[in-house]
């Protein structure tokens, strides 16, 4: 899964497959991080909610 595991080879199949995988994971990860951070910021700004700060 990672380039330093011993069965890893820098060949086309690994690059395409793992590239796709890490690409998807990155989008999901960044997207979620963005949402959480933005939600935290928004919350601090006092947006939304009924009993907020």
């Amino acid at each position, binding site marked *: *899964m990672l380039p330093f*595991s011993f*069965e890893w080879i820098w060949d086309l*199949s*690994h690059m395409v*497959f*793992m590239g*796709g*995988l890490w690409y*998807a*994971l990155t*989008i*999901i990860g960044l*997207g*979620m991080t*963005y*949402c*959480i951070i*933005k*939600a*935290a910021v*928004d*919350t601090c700004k*006092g*947006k*939304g*909610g*009924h*009993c*907020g*700060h």
Partner: protein
Amino acid sequence: MDSALIPEGVKRCSFGKFIFWIIVVGAVLLWGVFAMLLCWFKGLNQTNMNDAYGFAVWIWADLAVIALGGGAFFTGLLRYIFGKDELKNIINYAVLIGFICYSSALLILAIDIGQPLRGWFIFWHANVHSMLTEVAFCLSCYFAVLTIEYIPLILENRQVDKVPFFHNLSHNMHGIMAIFAATGAFLSFFHQGSLGGVAGVLFGRPFAYREGVFIWPWTFFLFTWSAAACGPCFTIFITWITEKITRKKLVKKNVIMLLAKIAGWMLATYTIAKIIDTWYWAAVTVPSKGFTLMDFYSNNPLYGIWILVLEIVICGVVPSIILITKKGRESSFLLISAVFLGALGACVNRWVMVLQVMAVPVMTFESWPMYFPSWQEIATTILPVAYGIILIMISYRYLPIFPQEREIEQIG
């Protein structure tokens, strides 16, 4: 008792009745859990699988629920990417069904492998040439996406929504849902496909083997296509059942009609593709390996040519015609029959591509091994169904799954 949790403006049954049914379905769930634990602690000798049937009813259930859960990705794709806005009224339910199907699929896989503790090797020591690796990666990633799509729903619960952070989080997630949906559609395309590839690449099994493009056999595309066609059928079917059980209209007719029409065209094109694939396979691929089509449908007590007719004609051609004609869609009976047949078609196809593949003898001196699942296998296969019903019951009761429900109720 729990009225504070129930979405505003909708009616739900009494808490006692709700709990009663939870307990009833929960008992079935526990039976499944018991069987699951037996399989984990005593090993797969609890099943009736054997060296001829390395894949059996579980893998079929796995493939089937994933196909049926395909409604989530395809509806999401239509809603977020192609801008079919009406579908927002059914997308929540599609996501929920998808979430159930995919979590069940992952659970089944965890029971099915001989060394569950080493299950993560599939990620860590991945063989990128294996269709199963592709399945595992896309399946888990897409499950993450589905979870992300399901979370805002939970956050919309009346009480949770009161927490400002959760309210904001839900809001933000909705904001970029299109990105998630796009990623989900990408992932889904590949794992639905690679599930098809699982059987299609088996060049040692002429019954399963298909030629294709690049590394992907035709079954790769057919599976994605059929999931896109049958998934929405299943979503419509489950919505109909939910409506029957709750004795309420939950989704407006125009939404259902739209989804049914799209599903119909998908199914129709899929069926044509499947017929071409089957013809090419029977006429070219199979004879080149020394078989005739009927070799695969004779000399055994179960698999006759009927199964091919059932899959392609009864569960393909017939529902396609119903769904692509306006009259057909508008008759409630025909519509429901058609979506049921469509969903059944996917199940039959997955059965054939898993169990019949195992059953067809390849070496000339072998015979058809037959198999019947043990009760442990049946129980663990029913387990996800029970789990799904419970999750739907809870979600329906406490979450605003059907945005149109209040509106319809007020009209009604």
